């Protein structure tokens, strides 16, 4: 598979949030404002790409040669936690505003199941180091795309004249479901 096909596949066809239903916590949590959604998307893309590459290296250089693939989950968690902590220090230094906006959701990228899910999926496929990076980038871009679209919709939905029972999270859930339906339409594209 070439670069573009992987990217398109991860962004649209196998979108982590709307097709595979991974990483729903930040999807609902940080989608109140488009600006913070953009920041969260960028941070998650960074972590996904880096974690995908690191986990690939750990898997191919340590776990497979030592015949201990059963340690994948715990080793990947260690790697992801380290990468997220690194990203947190990095963002705190270079963008204090983004750091304050993301708040608790930044450390929570550690427990974002999209990251671990991506690494475990990658470990079960045969791919090169470069491809692992593209998978991570594609997953991150897909996550960001969906998060930004969803937050833009939610910003408008706040002012919508909805029945009281539907206001807030209920309307957000319905919207997310409809978005998911729309993304299912990309199935078979790649």
């Amino acid at each position: 598979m070439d670069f573009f096909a992987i990217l398109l596949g991860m962004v649209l066809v196998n979108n982590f949030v709307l097709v595979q239903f991974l990483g729903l916590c930040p999807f609902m949590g940080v989608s109140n404002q488009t600006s913070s959604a953009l920041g969260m998307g960028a941070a998650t893309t960074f972590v996904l790409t880096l974690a995908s590459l690191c986990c690939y290296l750990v898997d191919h250089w340590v776990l497979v040669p030592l015949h201990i693939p059963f340690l994948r989950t715990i080793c990947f968690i260690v790697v992801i936690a380290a990468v997220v902590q690194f990203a947190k220090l990095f963002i705190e230094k270079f963008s204090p505003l983004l750091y304050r906006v993301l708040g608790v959701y930044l450390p929570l990228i550690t427990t974002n199941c999209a990251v671990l899910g991506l690494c475990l999926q990658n470990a079960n496929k045969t791919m090169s180091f470069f491809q692992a990076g593209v998978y991570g980038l594609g997953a991150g871009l897909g996550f960001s795309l969906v998060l930004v679209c969803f937050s833009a919709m939610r910003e408008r939905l706040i002012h919508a004249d909805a029945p009281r029972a539907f206001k807030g999270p209920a309307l957000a859930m319905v919207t997310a479901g409809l978005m998911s339906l729309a993304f299912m339409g990309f199935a078979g594209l790649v």
Partner: protein
Amino acid sequence: MQFLDDVSMWQLIHNSPWLSSLIALGGLCFVSGLLLGFAALRFRVEGSPLVAQIDAILPQTQCGQCGHPGCRPYAEAIATGEAINRCPPGGQATIDALAHLLGLEPLPLDAEHGVASAIKTVAYIRESECIGCTKCIQACPVDAILGAAKLMHTVIASECTGCDLCVEPCPVDCIEMRPLTPPVQVWSWPAPSHTHLIASDRAL
């Protein structure tokens, strides 16, 4: 004494899942720790030293009369440009110190946020009148009032900062502010009332 050469060492690790697991996980954690330690030093963020300096000047009564929930938030607000004359417990001395630190003109105390009293006071609860409503306990920013619901309350005088916040909520008006009488250990002669101590003072 038998030495293990490199190959047999590798064989040993290779054949024992326990050993290889321990080495892999331990090594991974060690490398991650090194990376994070390096990042923590490389990307260290110094908190604004100005806020800490302002906070050190403020009286730490946490009374909230400036409109902020405590002294630290007020220090942060001053650092971003808020007026320095909103602290009644600190009085003129605090304003002068802040003006000196920040290079601003010393202003008189903003009367909107309360008046400074020349003598230190502490709250005193007339215990025979107290009905035990706990409203003053909730108002106290420094937890200097002791008591429970429907039981008499009392003020821990050494903890009280004299911020007046408990006087207002009392439904039976049994709290009054009493001037603090210094204990004999720290008592000193009161300062002379007139300010012209020496001849050159008069010229100012």
